[in-house]
């Protein structure tokens, strides 16, 4: 027998049977930031059979404080996150089949990644992609585990198709704006706490110990010493268009997606949210001016210069990202500063 998993096998809810189940499962981790590196490391150490991890970004110095698979050399070389993650994960456990891709994930990409996946781990940083994951999970009947954090606050919910309310039931609409780790900061213990909740639920699913699942929406604030777990079963909606009686999976359709376009000859990407918005430009100006960039505002638009990029925000929700033709890079900046 392999010594490697002996302590996990001694833990009776897992045991040898559970370990053998874990070793036959395939987990898809979407995002290789703080939550993604945490989840991936835990699952690879635990001996999952196959782990696929995807992300569109590269390693920066500001990641090292909490993104546990990366080292200084990765930031110096601006290594794509999944390339650096894959290298480290293989060193941790060479028995696991690790598939890493540098990929800007949207509907088509997930449809291709989802084949024979047993569980999806959310390690993303925005609700556009989470609503797509939510619809994919329902369409293919694959559980997924929502996790998010900002500051010292974190939240997680396990979504089982056909049983629990889905994220669409809980949110009703997609949250726009809001604070992000790049505007409100983040401490690593908040990340680790969410990772602990997500990966423990993942282990229960992988060993098929469904009775042990938490069955509650959990949230906490480590700095304020708060902890809340509430039952949300009552919020499951029979007429939900994602998980109800006659689902249409609205977030997989083109109309409901955030759209991007490279503007010809302008070194600029336009990002347009699915619905017209009424952005509070003055409030955004206050938030963004704390980011070290230069902010200027007129009644129609807000301009935000940060390093070599300039973001121009219109009241109707549109954003122009100047200084790049790369859609993935533009999306990264968009979600970093606008959530």
């Amino acid at each position: 027998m392999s010594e490697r998993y002996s302590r996990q096998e001694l833990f009776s809810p897992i045991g040898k049977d559970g370990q053998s189940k874990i070793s036959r499962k395939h987990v898809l981790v979407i995002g290789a930031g703080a939550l993604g590196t945490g989840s991936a490391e835990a699952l690879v150490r635990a001996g999952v059979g196959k782990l696929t991890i995807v992300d569109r970004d590269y390693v920066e110095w500001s990641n090292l404080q909490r993104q546990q698979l990366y080292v200084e050399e990765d930031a110096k070389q601006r290594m794509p996150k999944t390339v650096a993650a894959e290298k480290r994960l293989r060193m941790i456990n060479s028995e696991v089949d690790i598939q890493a891709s540098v990929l800007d994930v949207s509907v088509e990409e997930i449809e291709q990644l989802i084949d024979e996946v047993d569980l999806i781990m959310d390690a993303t940083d925005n609700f556009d992609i989470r609503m797509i994951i939510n619809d994919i999970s329902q369409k293919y009947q694959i559980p997924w585990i929502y996790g998010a954090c900002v500051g010292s606050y974190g939240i997680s919910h396990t979504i089982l198709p056909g049983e629990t309310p889905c994220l669409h039931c809980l949110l009703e609409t997609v949250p726009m704006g809001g604070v992000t780790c790049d505007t409100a900061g983040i401490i690593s213990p908040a990340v680790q706490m969410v990772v602990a909740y997500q990966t423990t639920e993942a282990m229960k699913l992988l060993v098929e110990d469904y009775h042990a699942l938490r069955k509650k929406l959990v949230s906490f604030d480590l700095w304020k010493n708060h902890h809340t777990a509430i039952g949300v079963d009552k919020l499951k909606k029979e007429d939900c268009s994602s998980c109800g009686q006659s689902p249409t999976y609205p977030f997989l359709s083109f109309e409901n997606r955030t759209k991007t376009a490279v503007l010809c000859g302008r070194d600029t990407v336009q990002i347009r949210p699915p619905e017209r918005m009424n952005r509070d430009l003055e409030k955004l100006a206050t938030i963004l001016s704390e980011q070290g960039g230069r902010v200027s505002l007129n009644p129609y638009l807000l301009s935000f210069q940060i390093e070599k990029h300039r973001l121009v925000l219109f009241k109707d929700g549109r954003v122009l990202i100047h200084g790049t033709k790369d859609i993935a890079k533009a999306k990264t900046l968009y979600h970093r500063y606008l959530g």
Partner: protein
Amino acid sequence: MELIINGDKVEVPNKITTVSSLLQHFGINQKVVIVELNQSILEKGSHQETTISDRDKIEIVNFVGGG
């Protein structure tokens, strides 16, 4: 009026009578939240008509996006 919010005792003005006005008081009425009042979860559409009173136990969960 004294409320227990996420486990902490919090004093709020007596003019706050509904869940909606409470969320407004904390400046989180624009955020996506789920509210539990005395261990009973509230439908989002009912925040406006759900009244609150002294010593109520309220849990507020805020959906955030970071990760």
